[in-house]
């Protein structure tokens, strides 16, 4: 019943396709850079991972791009790549193809601009064309309009596990018959006003704080469908979603709960759903994002569960920064690694299994296991 992934897309500073993103990730490149003085202003944060020089062309014509916010542009590109790689003809049955995206910031640009004019000038002066893009569901909806998807369409915001939530929602949509195929992923845009808020509440790493995140941005998507459908289309899947585990810890929405039992519960849940033991996992895509107590707890649980650590590690957030969409980036990286014949797996690993962890503030813990398809 577990769906397979037949296509992936990525749009971020480290690559404008899932293959380029994955290759540069494996090569150890990072898009984290110091703020320019103008960007930094009064922030104590020192670094950021923005997608400098991003242009939606040539895929999105300039005229059309003008009415799309940055997050929607990322989403349209990433989702189009996933559909293209999967070779999926959406027009055959548009009502059976849907989308679920996670995000922590979608709409931020339109929201801050609309409010800026409303506050500094007047409510009547606030530009109406910005308002529809202030909603977090703008990117997923713009994708549905662009790709003509009539199936399920949702957007999920749940801290770091937003992207894994989107994958879980999608897998339920497929198993319950709501959709034959789902685009699942995550998108975030960097925004100066949001950065100021995150900085002032102590979330960002910088001159005054050794523990905290560096913010990134980008769009990431995979196409999920049933294995039977993929086979019927004669498409070889990149990977299978083998299982997802979740755990919650009751805590304030913005506090970190480095609760080792919850972390273990999320990972064990994913392993158990995958019918796998820790020794069957070879690649680890940790949640680690620079929040020291959380990273230490994850490391401790992983060492305990796996008797050391899985054979290989890909630290996605060290390369592209942290955001709700980073979970989407981890999923794309995991699937590319599993499908890559030279990927970071021991030669006898069969099937190849990767663990993706996505842990956030507010006591939110999701883990997922992806595996190769024979």
């Amino acid at each position, binding site marked *: 019943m577990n769906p397979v992934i037949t296509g992936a897309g990525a749009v971020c500073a480290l690559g404008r396709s899932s293959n380029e993103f994955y290759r540069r990730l494996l090569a150890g490149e990072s898009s984290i850079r110091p703020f320019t003085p103008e960007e930094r202003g009064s922030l104590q944060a020192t670094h950021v991972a923005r997608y400098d020089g991003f242009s939606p062309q040539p895929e999105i014509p300039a005229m059309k791009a003008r009415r799309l916010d940055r997050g929607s542009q990322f989403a349209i590109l990433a989702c189009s790549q996933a559909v293209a790689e999967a070779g999926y003809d959406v027009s055959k049955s548009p*009502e059976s193809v*849907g*989308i679920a995206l996670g995000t922590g910031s979608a709409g931020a640009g339109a929201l*801050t601009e*609309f*409010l*800026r004019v*409303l*506050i*500094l000038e007047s*409510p*009547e002066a*606030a*530009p*109406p064309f910005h*308002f*529809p*893009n*202030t*909603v*977090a*569901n*703008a990117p997923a*909806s*713009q994708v549905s*309009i662009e*790709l003509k998807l*009539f199936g*399920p*369409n*949702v*957007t*999920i*915001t*749940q*801290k770091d596990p937003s992207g894994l939530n989107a994958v*879980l*929602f999608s897998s*339920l*949509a497929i*198993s*319950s018959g*709501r959709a034959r195929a789902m685009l699942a992923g995550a998108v975030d845009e960097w925004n100066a*006003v949001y950065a*100021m*808020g995150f900085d002032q*509440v102590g979330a960002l790493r910088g001159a005054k704080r050794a523990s905290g995140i560096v913010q990134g941005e980008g769009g990431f998507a995979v196409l999920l469908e049933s294995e039977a459908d993929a086979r019927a289309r004669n498409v070889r899947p990149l990977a299978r979603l083998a299982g997802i585990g*979740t*755990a*919650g*810890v*009751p*805590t304030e*929405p*913005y506090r970190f709960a480095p609760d080792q039992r*919850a972390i273990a*519960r999320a990972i064990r849940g994913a392993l158990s759903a995958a019918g796998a033991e820790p020794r069957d996992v070879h690649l680890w895509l940790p949640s680690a994002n620079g929040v020291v107590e959380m990273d230490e707890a994850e490391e401790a649980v992983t060492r305990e569960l796996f008797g050391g650590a899985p054979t290989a590690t890909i630290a996605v957030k060290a390369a592209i920064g942290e955001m709700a969409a980073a979970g989407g980036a981890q999923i794309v990286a995991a699937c590319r690694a599993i499908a890559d014949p030279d990927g970071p797996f021991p030669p006898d690993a069969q099937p190849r299994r990767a663990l993706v962890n996505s842990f956030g503030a*507010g*006591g*939110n813990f999701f883990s997922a296991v992806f595996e190769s398809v024979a």
Partner: protein
Amino acid sequence: MTRGRRVVVTGLGAVTSIGTTVSEFWENLLEGVCGIRPLSLFDASAYRTQTAAEVLDIPDDFLSAADKRRMSRADRMGLAAAREALAQAGLDLSRDDPTRIGVILGGGTSGLLDSEEVYEKWLHGRPARPSRVLNHLPDAITDRVAQRFGLEGIKSTITTACSSAANAMGYAYDAIAGNLADAVVTGGSDVLARLTYGGFNSLRSVDPDPCRPFDRERRGLSIGEAAGILVFEEAEYARRRGATILGEFLGYGVTSDAFHMTAPDPSGAAGGRTIRAALEDAGVDPADVDYVNAHGTATPQNDSAETAALKSALGDRAREIPVSSIKSMIGHCLCASGAIEAIATVLTVREGRVPPTIHYENPDPACDLDYVPNEAREWPVRVALSNSFAFGGNSSVVVLGRYE
């Protein structure tokens, strides 16, 4: 499709402009009480319109003074509604496994009202207390509900604008049916803010007077705020622990219009697709539908498109059954609307009484169904639909019925 695990409703909680408990809300709905009044939460004098369905007294006495300071208005309303719903459901964490109880809510404005004040100070170069932005993201309420009531299961916040709460209920349903949880606290809490008030005004979608769904002279929506919380449970789980079952969540449909960011497909084809998907999911024939709790925003476009959608999906049955919009009383509660309307729908099924569409005077040839004008009606209901349509063409329809 049919599934092994059925999902029932065992608790309801409501905080609205016409009642801050479920029973007060329900009585006033049946009485046709209008909660749309002059807005007092912030200065509305510079906006095109000055009315809203505002909650005047949040029942949050159970929170400490420090909690109230820390929390957003949406948090306090959401917690009050969750407290009422959980008390009715009677889940007991000394016996019920907290890791099997999730929280999946629809979110939107969340702490935006506070963030707007901080942003205003920043824009004027003045310092602001940064802790006021801590509740900005819509997932704050979900975490707060889990924190307050000690729930350790799956957590998620759906942010699909005006269909958020409906989709949250759908995700909760799939999570329970898919055996990821035994119970889920679902619904949503959404409050007035300058962004949404100014936004709908900038689109010229707001009626300066209380809104008039389906009326020929309708001129737009009235913005409202509410928290609506429902406790969903796997049916056998609820029966084993002796819970009172209020109704069954039979299924839902969720689709994309893929049409336009703000305008509905006027032909009703998109809305019709969603209703058909919901009926198919629930295993219900159009002829079995006894009532529709309409999205009924009172914008000229929505109400005629929704009417066309109902006729296309339900055929002749659309003309035989009551269709009402409680937004005429509580306004459009945006990301919470699907939840508060589902609560009204559960109560309609349970009691066989249909709340009216008030302010209805002038029939519109493009809206030619029975909208239950101005007076509640006794009407036996076994199966009912509740529609939610949102910006981005995010459409969702839930099917609720008697548990039998």
